[in-house]
Every structure is written in C-alpha cells, then in structure tokens.
C-alpha cells in the first residue's frame, strides 16, 4: 500500500480522534481548526471535524475564489435562478425555462478516467433535475496532454467511454463541447461536464429544507464506503507524481439507478410533492443536508440508523462523508410522504426517511440513540472561511516576433493544420455519444458551432456551446477569459441563438500560489468585463483549484457554457456551406495574429506573445448581425485562422467555394492562419442586405467569393484543395 492510500484510509473517525494534528487528516489548517473550536466553544467531535473538513474544503466552500467571483454580473432579464442553487435557470418563451450548470470532474478523472468522467455526468445531471428540470443535453469540455503521449490517449479513451457509458444509458444526448490538447494537461486532464434541462418557469424546485417537522427522505442508491473525503482530499489538494493510490477516493457510477432516480424525482416534481430537493454530490449527506437547511434558514436532524447501507458496520463518519452516487435528499410535506413513497416504489427506487426539518438552525446527527454531531448549520455553510489570498497579477503580455520568415506560399500548411489535434474533426469522440436520444437535437455535433435543441411542441429551441482556451489564457489571463465569453456567445449566435446566460468552470492550479491566484483574479476581471459588455449574466458554475501535479499547474483554463434562445427553430444554422451559388463573406477584421495561434504552435513549437483581445463593440455588433441577418451558414473563425475556417465550411457542409482573399497588409501567414476574436465566415443569398446591416452594426464585412458545386476550396492565387474527408483523431487512437 502506498503512502497516499494510507492517507486516504486514515481519514476515519479514529484517526481524527487520536491525531495530535486532527485538522491534517481532514484537509484543514490549524488556524481553521482553532476558529472551529472557538465557534463551538469546545473541541469538535471527530465526526463534526470530518463534516467541517469537507464543507470547508476549497471544493465545497470556494474559500479562495468567493471574493473574486463577487465581481461577476449575475442578474439579467432572463435569469430566474442565479448562482448558489443546484443550477442556474433562464427564462424561455411560452412559460418554459432552461436550467444550466457546468462542473469539473478533473481529479477523479485523472485517477480513474472512466468512472471519473461517468460520475461527472451523473453528478451534473442530478444538479439539473434537482431544479425540477428534465435534463436535455450534456456538453463536455475536455483537455488532455498531446495525443502522441500514451497517458493522454489512455485518459482520452477512458474519459470518452465513461461519458458515453453514463450519458447513453441514462438517455440524455451528449451534443457538444470542446476538446483541447496541450502539454500542460499531461498529468492533470480537465473534464468539465455541462448539462441543460427543460422545465416550466412556474415549477422551479429549490434545494431548500422548510417546514419544521417535515420528513427528510433519502432516495436512490444505498450508501457505501466509496468516495469518502473526495471533496476534501481528492478535489482540494494537488497530486504528487502517481495519483493511482487515490483510487479509493473515486466513486463508481450506475447510470441505470441514475435513470430510475431521475424518473422518480421528475414524477415527484410533476405531481407537486416536493418541498425541496438536493443532490448528494461532493461531501455527500453532509453537504446535501447542511446546504438544504442553510438555504431554507432551518435546522435538520438525521438518524443514521435509518440510512440504507451497502456495507455493514459503517460508522457515522463514513455515512456522513460517503460520496456514493445516485442519491438525492428530498424534503416533502408530512402529508405527502405516503404519495412520495409510492412514486419511488413504482420506479424501483429505494427510499428511506432519514430525518426531519427542525427550526433551531442546527444540524444534529444521531446514531444508535446518541447525538454524534450537533452544530449550527451556518458553521458549515455561510461561516466557512473566505480568503483573500496573495495574488501576483500577471504582467501585460508583449507581442511575439516570429523567429523566421513569412510564407511565400501555402505549401502543405492547410493540410497540416486541418490534421492538427486541436483542429481536426471530433467525430471519433461524438460518434461514441448518443447525441440524438430524446429526438430534439436539431443541429448535431459536427454540423454547427453550437448544438441546437428543439423544444418540441413549440417553434423555438435552445443553442448551447461550451468554449474556452487554456492556451490563450496562459498567455493573457484577462484577454483569454474575456475571449472565452465572447467565443461561446459567438458560437451560440452562429447557430442562430441569442445568448441568454452563461455558466462557467474555472480550472486553475493551487490558490496558495500567488502567481496562480494572480492569473485567476485577472481572468475573473476579463470574464466580468466581457459578460457585462455583452449583457450575458453568469448563472453559476464551478471553480476547480489544485489542478497541478508535483507543483506544475495546468494552463489556467476557464470554460464558458452559454445558452441562447433560437426563437424560430426554422432559422437554426449549421457551420457548413449548404449549397452552391451563395455569397461567402467574412465578418470582422481580415487578418489575425500569430501570437497564441495553432499555426504558431505547429510551426515554432510553443505559444508565445500577446493574442488579440476581443473588442467588445465589435462582438456586440456581430451578435446583432448574426441575430438579424438572413444567413444560410455561419462559422466562427477560431483555431487555425481564416483559411482553415473556409476549409471547415466546405468539410462540414454540402458545397465547395471559390474565394479571393484580401491582399495581406502584413505577413501572408497572418492573413491565412493568424487568429483574432470577432471573425465569422458566413454564406448568404442576399449579400447586399448583409452588407447594409453590417454597416449599421459597425461590423467590417467583405465578400470573399461564392459557394460552388463539388467539395473543392479554390483560393485564387493560393491554391485548390479537394476537401472530401475530414481528418480526425483516429491516427492517434486507431
């Protein structure tokens, strides 16, 4: 047994009790322990300390990020539920609403990719249906080391299989996301899972306990010894070299039970039987119970003898901190308890009455007739520490000077970039995901810049995109985070959606490192600025710190998930040219920068310099043009630059194109492969109207050419490319 395995197994009641430094075993500092003892007026009991260790962990308490997250705008016309609940909720037409949330499952996925990713899907889906919504889509933001590396391929395979295993079985389509490869993620992959769900705006459930005396029910899986202290010891610490010894802290998912739990909770919600509903995720019963009581301003009393167990002889500490999957804590009105039991029985979901709501604001745990924990709820929730950690702000990035000459011809650069891991087709991934179950996916993966889900029975839909760039954020945290907001919004707009709100997942290294904290603070500023400028409120999300191994942090990576309204589902858009004879136009500036571009990495080996920052007036204008113009296709010009973007429009569409690119003002490679925000390639059968609209919106617009029969991309004076088969990830994975 390795030393680390011992550390996890040691986090039991006995070890805490006998330890001269008991705070250590639960991931707290001595200072934090002292403040707990001061608040209680006594030393905490071992169970109490374990519960506090979990709730005061970075993962659950956001103790290092909260002072920064406050700067994000969280209100707007469409926001029905903002941060602090299980998921954010945005208003749609005709009394409908959509719930969105994204969460990281990085640490478990690094230890055990299949189960780590699978339980990531299960966890985020429970967050969605805890709001009373029926999950309708999953998107994944995945970052791995370069696919040439064996470990990266192992993690990629395992993560994709795990997502497929859970999502396909539970019957929620996996419709999109983003996948990036960079050396910084070699040991610490990122697995961010976003989900969305439909609900009626007047039937939103809250994760709240109310009504003293009301029964507290535990539904779903039995409680086992899996995942004990996942929140505090796995998610809130950095890895040493080999994380395999942490496997006992990873949970195992069961999508079949997840499906039964989903159906039972949906029926409870539809029949109006719920007072409150809270997912058991990180910190298990401890967090579900204390959060529910905290939000409702109530107390809660649990009798652990009533908790259905998977294993014998589990002690209170294990029961309260188990992270066994597929469990939901539900509060019902005492009069509805029998009806709730009947619903769960019908779905074959185990249900147990494990306690009741009280009015004294305390969480009280009984086991074998004795009280083993008794604390103010607030000590676990609102009184958790908040730190303004030392932060060393990054210096403003300086432009890079390309080390050698400009291109004189395209040569094989287009083919090389189209085959690059960060640009090539994601078909190998999304083909393993059922992306059509629920028969509502109107823009499929690979067809558009965002997935579009049709709200059947109405004429509207929702566009969903998840985007962000660790590479750009590494060079310029402020600009990179602002760009993540702009790009996700642009993707939604390209597919025909008007952005309503966003959810974010912030993946950083250790908050105890001032440089890391500095890039985090700068990124929050950039994200806040962009979200304000585009009027896209933040409805919640997740912060994942300690993404580092042996002191090497990942590239700071904010992933932004945007939901937008496609008011007329008939006006949804794909990214590919749909037919011959359309005008092809570029919206936004012609040339990009080499700094931070995929071309720079492919040609010179590493990103450097100062990537172009988004210009908010241009981004606003683009959103307007994309909302109002009659376009047949729209594709965000991102990784790879303009020529790659044009090639992708041919590859994902049904027509070729003949274009003449503008004369380069600077280097030819900046024009062809330079990257800059605020650029979109569109096709239209009414170029005149588009040009007029662009003038009114202050968006540069130039006609590049026309779409043509066949699958050739002809760029006059530069070359002709026959684009029939998309390059994919298969060369690395076959």
């Amino acid at each position, binding site marked *: 047994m390795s030393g680390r395995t011992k550390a996890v197994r040691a986090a039991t009641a006995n070890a805490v009790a006998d330890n001269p430094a008991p705070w250590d075993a639960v991931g707290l500092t001595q200072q934090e322990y002292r403040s707990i003892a001061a608040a209680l007026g006594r030393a905490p009991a071992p169970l109490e300390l374990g519960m506090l260790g979990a709730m005061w962990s970075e993962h659950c308490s956001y103790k290092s990020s909260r002072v920064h997250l406050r700067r994000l705008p969280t209100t707007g016309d469409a926001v029905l539920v903002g941060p602090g609940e299980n998921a954010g909720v945005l208003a749609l037409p005709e009394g409908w609403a959509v719930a969105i949330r994204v969460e990281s499952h990085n640490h478990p996925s690094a230890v055990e990719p299949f189960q780590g990713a699978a339980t990531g899907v299960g966890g985020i889906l429970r967050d969605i249906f805890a709001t009373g919504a029926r999950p309708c889509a999953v998107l994944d933001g995945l970052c791995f080391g370069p696919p040439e590396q064996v470990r990266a391929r192992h993690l990629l395979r395992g993560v994709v299989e795990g997502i497929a295993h859970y999502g*396909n079985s539970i019957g929620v389509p996996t419709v999109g996301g983003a996948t990036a490869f960079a050396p910084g993620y070699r040991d610490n992959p990122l697995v961010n899972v976003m989900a969305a769900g439909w609900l009626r705006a007047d039937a939103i459930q809250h994760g709240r306990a109310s009504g003293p005396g009301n029964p507290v029910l535990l539904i779903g899986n039995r409680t086992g010894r899996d995942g004990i202290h996942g929140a505090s010891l796995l998610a809130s610490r950095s890895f040493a070299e080999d994380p395999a010894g942490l496997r006992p802290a990873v949970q195992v998912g069961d999508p079949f039970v997840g499906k039964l739990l989903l159906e039972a909770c949906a029926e409870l919600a539809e029949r109006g039987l719920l007072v409150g509903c809270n997912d058991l995720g990180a910190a298990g019963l401890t967090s579900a119970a204390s959060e529910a009581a905290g939000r409702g301003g109530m107390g809660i009393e649990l009798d652990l003898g009533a908790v259905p167990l998977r294993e014998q002889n589990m002690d209170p500490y294990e029961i309260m901190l188990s992270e066994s999957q597929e469990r939901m804590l539900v509060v019902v009105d005492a009069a509805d308890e029998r009806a709730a039991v009947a619903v769960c029985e019908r779905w074959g979901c185990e249900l147990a009455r494990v306690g009741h709501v009280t009015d004294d604001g305390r969480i009280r745990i009984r086991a074998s007739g004795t009280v083993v924990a008794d604390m103010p709820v607030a000590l676990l929730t609102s009184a958790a520490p908040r730190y303004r950690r030392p932060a060393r702000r990054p210096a403003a990035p300086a432009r890079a000077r390309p080390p050698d000459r400009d291109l004189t011809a395209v040569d094989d650069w287009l083919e090389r970039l189209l085959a690059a891991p960060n640009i090539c087709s994601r078909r190998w991934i999304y*083909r*393993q*995901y059922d992306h059509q179950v629920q*028969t509502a996916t109107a823009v499929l993966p690979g067809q558009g810049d965002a997935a579009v889900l049709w709200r059947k029975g109405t004429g509207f839909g929702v566009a969903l995109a998840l985007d962000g760039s660790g590479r750009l954020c590494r060079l310029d945290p402020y600009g990179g985070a602002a760009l993540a907001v702009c790009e996700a919004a642009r993707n939604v707009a390209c597919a025909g959606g008007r952005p309503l709100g966003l959810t974010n997942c912030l993946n950083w290294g250790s908050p105890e490192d001032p440089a890391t904290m500095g890039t985090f603070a700068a990124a929050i500023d950039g994200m806040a600025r962009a979200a304000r400028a585009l009027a896209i409120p933040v409805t919640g999300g997740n912060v994942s710190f300690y993404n580092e191994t042996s002191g090497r942090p990942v590239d700071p990576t904010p992933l932004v998930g945007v939901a937008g309204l496609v008011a007329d589902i*008939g006006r949804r858009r794909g990214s590919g040219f749909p037919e011959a004879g359309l005008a092809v136009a570029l919206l936004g500036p012609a040339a990009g920068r080499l700094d931070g571009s995929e071309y720079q990495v492919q040609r010179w080996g590493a990103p450097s310099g100062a990537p172009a920052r988004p210009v908010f007036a241009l981004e606003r204008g683009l959103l307007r043009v994309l909302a109002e113009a009659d376009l047949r296709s729209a594709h965000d010009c991102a990784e790879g630059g303009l020529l790659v973007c044009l090639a992708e429009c041919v590859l994902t569409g049904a027509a070729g194109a003949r274009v003449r690119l503008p004369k380069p003002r600077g280097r030819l490679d900046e024009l062809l492969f330079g990257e800059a925000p605020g650029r979109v390639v569109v096709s239209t059968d009414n170029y005149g109207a588009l040009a007029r609209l662009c003038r009114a919106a202050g968006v540069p617009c130039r006609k590049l050419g026309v779409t043509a029969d066949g699958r050739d991309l002809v760029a006059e004076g530069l070359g002709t490319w026959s684009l029939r088969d998309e390059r994919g990830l298969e060369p690395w994975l076959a």
Partner: protein
Amino acid sequence: MSRTAVVVFPGSNCDQDALWALGADAVAVWHQEARLPADVSAVILPGGFAYGDYLRAGALARFSPIMADVRRAADAGMPVLGICNGFQVLCEAGMLPGALARNADIAFHCQTVTVEVADADTAWTAGLRRGERLRLPIAHGEGRYWVADLTGVRVAFRYAGENPNGSLENIAGVSNRAGNVVGLMPHPERAASETLGGVDGLRILGAVREALR
C-alpha cells in the same frame, strides 16, 4: 380507434420518442402490467438500456411481466416492432432468430446510416418497396447481428454502404416467419421530423397505422 402500445421497461430511454413520433394513437404501457390494453393493435418495444443492460442487452427485460402478453399477442398475429434495445429484447425472448453482439470495433456508434428494404412483406415494411433505401439514425454498442444458420431467417433491412457494426450479411433488421414481429437496430422514431433531419422513419412507423385504419 386502435392504438399502438409502447412498452416502458425500467431503463428504456426512447419510449417517449416513440410515443411522440407515433402521435395521438399511441399509449405507454408499464412493464409490470400483466396485459396490454384492450384497444391495442400493435406493440413497440423501444430503445434504451432496459435494466441497465449490465448482463446482456435485453437479457433481463424479457422476463418483465408484460412480455407474456406481448408474446401471446404476437402469436395471434399482432404487429410487434423492436427498435434497438427492443430488437435485443425480442431476440433474447426467442421471438426473433439470432442475437446482437458487441459492435465489431467494440465502440458505441451514433450516426445516420442508409438501409435497404430487403423484405416489403412484413407488417412493418408494408408501406415500402423492396430495394428502397432509407436514411435512419443508429445509436448502439451491441448491434452486430449474428445467427448460427441463416436458413429461414427473413431479413427485413440491410445496411447499404457502410456496415457500422460488423453485422452478418449487413443485416440491420429481421422478422419472424409470419412477418408480424420485426426488430431493427436503426431508430425510425428519430427520423420522424424534417426539423430533426428527415422523415424516413415514419414510413416504417406509419405502415401499421395505415394498415390498421
């Protein structure tokens, strides 16, 4: 009026899609019911992961109480259609010949395929012509059709072009001898709306509706 029953097993996840594609004259029937409703004149076993499919796909669902009545109705000639997981259940129940093994490349495949109608005389292909091609989505990890002896097996659909799972003789769907029980891996209910990419699936789902009218 007669209705089409869509059986809901625990873990079914295409039941609502089938009900939606069939429209008003469809009814969900919970797997624990002993009998199909009296006014039912066709049955669909939908896609999904019945009982989680942790054993073999469909291996547990065939023991669900409703299956006895489905078998009785099928023996009496009622049209029964198994889609994806439903096809697997029908094979496990012995109501269709053969078995569905793990895809040849051991990966789950979600994509749209072209299938050719091999037999236009079954209850579910009556509205189609032999040799006609349909575009239908698939989504499965265990869809490789296999049977020890093809003699007497009525093949209803074959993959035309790409065979996505390594099925024997490109078989995408089969029927029983009488032609009233059909199973296929592709999802006709996913090709039931232009908004979702096509309506070829309605030609299969509509076949019994037309015949019953």
